[in-house]
């Protein structure tokens, strides 16, 4: 069964550093998403991406965040200058939008720890 993959599984970085989280969505999917989950809290939507541009973003997704699909397979989330409060699990998801609904497949996540 095809699956979304994410690397690295765990990233430790110092405050103020840039990090890039990588995702490989399911190959025939066209819609891509990033979510995050701070420990013990809800899963929060960050951004959706389609046709090489952002479709929608949340208030969390400020100027410190950016997304890119640099090639035909990868989808990346960059945090330009990390803050302590960026520590969380970051989940990538992808979907193949259909007329009947939109099942999103999530990756295993990247645990980001900002020290």
């Amino acid at each position: 069964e095809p699956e979304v993959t994410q690397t690295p599984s765990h990233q430790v970085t110092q405050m103020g550093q840039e990090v890039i989280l990588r995702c490989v969505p399911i190959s025939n999917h066209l819609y891509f998403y990033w979510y995050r989950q701070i420990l013990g809290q809800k899963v929060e939507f960050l951004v959706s991406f389609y046709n090489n541009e952002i479709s929608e973003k949340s208030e969390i997704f400020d100027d410190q965040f950016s997304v890119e699909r640099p090639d035909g397979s990868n989808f990346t989330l960059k945090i330009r200058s990390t803050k302590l409060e960026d520590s969380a699990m970051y989940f990538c998801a992808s979907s193949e939008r259909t007329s009947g609904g939109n099942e999103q497949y999530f990756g295993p996540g990247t645990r980001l720890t900002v020290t």
Partner: protein
Amino acid sequence: LAKTTQPISMDSYEGQEVNITCSHNNIATNDYITWYQQFPSQGPRFIIQGYKTKVTNEVASLFIPADRKSSTLSLPRVSLSDTAVYYCLRMDSSYKLIFGSGTRLLVRP
């Protein structure tokens, strides 16, 4: 965005059927109801989705009454490995998922 409301937690025993009810009073005409499952330190996993009446797959059943103001996820004969958080979500036209706190299901031996 219209919210969904579901119990914070539920307990069950192996082999029992578990029904988790979700309330979504302000659901819009074009919205779907979607259920996800999440294990600790893992990404959410799609379980089932429906618009109205009954949907069944190999994992669960979803019952949505005619007024669509609520839905019930039914897990037949749960096992210990079904211990997880279950989320009821309203899928609107934007297709982003808005997660609530979910229902923590604990299955006991």
